[in-house]
């Protein structure tokens, strides 16, 4: 019985994915919008956990091939550079926490969110202590959500 149920779910997933892949986009519903928001909010945490844990493998899985990020100070990095930084345990540990996650835009294949990220720690000679306003962009590619890029600005303005 369990097996039959599992098989049904698998077939349903394949069929529904196939419909989207063939360009037969289902009508957007409020529930689907909420699902996108929920999914990318989780991916936001996956992203930060990967950075905290020096988990380059997860970062490489999450980042799209032409991922781009602008760090505070205007430093522009590619996917490979960002994955290398995350993987490098010599750079030291950062405590990273995101709050105030706001999904600014969500469609079936694009999501843009902002959050407030608090970082504590040093990497090399650089101290990252502080709060940052971050914009993260996600795009659905080949049926899977990938991180397309991020822009990060240090919060220096008085609240």
């Amino acid at each position, binding site marked *: 019985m369990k097996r039959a149920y599992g098989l049904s779910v698998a077939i349903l997933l394949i069929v529904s994915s196939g419909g989207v892949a063939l360009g037969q986009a289902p009508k957007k519903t409020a529930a689907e919008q909420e699902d996108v928001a929920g999914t990318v909010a989780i991916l936001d945490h996956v992203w930060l956990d990967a950075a905290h844990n020096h988990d380059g493998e997860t970062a490489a899985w999450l980042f799209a091939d*032409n991922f781009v990020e602008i760090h505070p100070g*205007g430093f522009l990095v590619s996917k490979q550079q960002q994955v290398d930084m995350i993987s490098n345990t010599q750079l030291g540990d950062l405590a990273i926490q995101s709050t105030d996650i706001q999904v600014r835009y969500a*469609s079936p294949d694009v999501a*843009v969110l*902002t959050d407030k990220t608090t970082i504590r720690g040093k990497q090399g000679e650089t101290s990252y202590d502080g709060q940052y306003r971050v*914009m993260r962009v996600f*795009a659905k590619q080949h049926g899977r959500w990938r991180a397309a890029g991020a822009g990060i*600005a*240090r919060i220096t*303005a008085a609240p």
Partner: protein
Amino acid sequence: MMRHIQVGILVLILGFAIPAMGQTKSAGDLAGGVDWKALDHKWLDSERTGDLDYLEKFFADSYVLVRADGQSYTKKEWLGILRGPDRPTLLTLDPEDIQVHVFGNVAILTDHTTIKGHDSKGKSMDGEYNVFRVVIKQNGIWRATGVVMNPDLTKK
């Protein structure tokens, strides 16, 4: 023979489809059939000259601006500033080194923007910034949905 033709067609389709999913180009190129350099210049020219009718249409309702001090503004808030007595005077708003990363219905533009001008109280706003810009395709039209500015410290 037929099988070879089918494989050839498949290779051609994949050859076109895969680059279209994730393109990184200098903005002089027409990635996705869009002149990204012109789009970026039109955007900033409109902010400099106060073409608010254009900006009202070009900014998506989801638009959010994060300035270099981390302060964020929604579309309504930012256009309110540009319309109001506190609007800044922008003499130069010039994007260079525009790069585009296209992901289907969203594109990320990065550029180096030079700003010369002052706020409503006369305080200088001169600076060099590396900027992260996000545009989305809605009903076939590309619209701005986000900006994050950073002071360019890369040459210091």
